[in-house]
């Protein structure tokens, strides 16, 4: 069933995905065993990264440690051991090679229990946490318009985000807001806004407020 914004009395749920980053090059790396000694690994309990970047450019994901060894700027995730292997240019330790290295993974937040694309969402967005979207055109309209999306409020009364905000980079990261009716399946959800996080405006015992930016402001 497709989402019908004009349907009668929809019980709407908002799903917010943010692709947060963890800086890796400052960690203590361990060299993989022979013959894959150009690969180095760290523990990565966050699971398989959505992407790995070195100096702002994506590394290539590989399906085995041997293929990661075969070329530079590659990565491989061992789900069993929860290890992330990286092969940087030169084959040395990322800590010594000094690329700005980061892994990314999505955090999934919602206004109610919901599962989308097989992933559970953490219900920690307050009912009034989702601001309205507005669009504006300048006096000289050239075919586009500026989307404005306010700040996102995340409930932090249980302190869950204290560790996450300390360990990960949340600013200037991709974010997707979907809206749909609870329990009606993935096809029911529509993307309402796709942009970037801005600054963390507020971080208290009760609440975290993150500003947002139009996607185009960060695309060159």
């Amino acid at each position, binding site marked *: 069933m497709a989402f019908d914004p004009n349907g009668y*009395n929809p*019980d709407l749920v908002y799903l917010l995905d943010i692709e947060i980053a963890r800086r890796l090059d400052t960690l203590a790396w361990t060299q993989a065993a022979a013959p894959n000694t150009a690969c180095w690994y760290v523990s990565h309990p966050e699971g*398989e990264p959505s992407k790995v970047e070195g100096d702002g450019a994506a590394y290539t994901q590989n399906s085995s440690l041997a293929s990661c060894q075969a070329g530079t700027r590659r990565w491989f995730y061992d789900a069993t051991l929860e290890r992330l292997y990286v092969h940087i240019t030169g084959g040395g330790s990322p800590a010594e090679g000094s690329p700005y290295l980061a892994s990314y993974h999505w955090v999934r937040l919602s206004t109610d229990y919901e599962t989308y694309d097989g992933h559970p969402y953490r219900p920690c967005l307050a009912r009034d946490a989702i601001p309205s979207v507005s669009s504006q055109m300048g006096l000289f309209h050239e075919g586009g318009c500026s989307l404005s999306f306010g700040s996102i409020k995340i409930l932090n009364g249980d302190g869950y985000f204290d560790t996450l905000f300390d360990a990960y980079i949340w600013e200037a990261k991709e974010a997707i807001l979907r809206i749909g009716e609870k329990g009606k399946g993935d096809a029911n959800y529509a993307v309402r806004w796709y942009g970037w996080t801005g600054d963390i405006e507020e971080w208290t015992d009760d609440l975290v407020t993150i500003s947002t930016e139009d996607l185009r402001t960060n695309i060159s």
Partner: protein
Amino acid sequence: MTIPVLWHPSAGRFRILWDNRADAATTIPTASSEAADYPIENIQNIWPEYKHRTDGLAVPDWWKFDLVTAQDVDYVLLWKHNISAGGTNLIQGNAADAWGAPTVNDTPTWAADRLVHQLAATAHLRRWRIASTDAANPDGYLEAGRVFIGTYFEFRYSYARKTPILYDPSEIQYTQGGQLISTRRTQFRGMRYEFSAVDAAEFATLAEIYEAVGMNTPYWIIEDSDSPLTTSYYVQNISEWRFPEIIHGYNEFMLEVETVR
């Protein structure tokens, strides 16, 4: 002097399960496996629908809790599970992490979405395990939202009166002409229980319970200890606990709760 006491004529007692050893910060929970995005830590989260899920089916699947030190245990609950009626379930307790012949090895009565099991006698053990073999489970995995392991408080008398409450948190607006426009929200339930004569010892324990749970921590109640599968609820307080005095040493008490969503 005799104090007149009103109570519900059920043979069972009203119980509060509040001191959950499974949630203690020092307790170490583990599981037979973990699906991606469904870690075992979710089972210590107060949200019952934010679950742990196994990565497939095993013989058996299990949830295990190391309480670090031996603790008194009367009840073991598995809440919001998906174990099917055909599953074989065991509640086990042991001093060591070995499950071949544990000290407690009970078969609980199954009910859809819950196991509520009272031990024959209080057990003082460090390790607890809920094991389930459910090879034909249609989901292809086992999951659960909450676990309770611990003791209970029991009133001397059951409640005198119960008021079930149905809530609809939908947001309601009206046009100038009086037409209703609403944003529908999920309904939920609440209950109000009135107890007619709480004595000094009960008051002391209830004060201790409220100090622990307050308005911020959910807990379980069992309305009728003789029918735990159909009268147990996972609830949170929605009003302060007040104890109007009847005569010195005896108080009325009203417990007002809503089901945790």
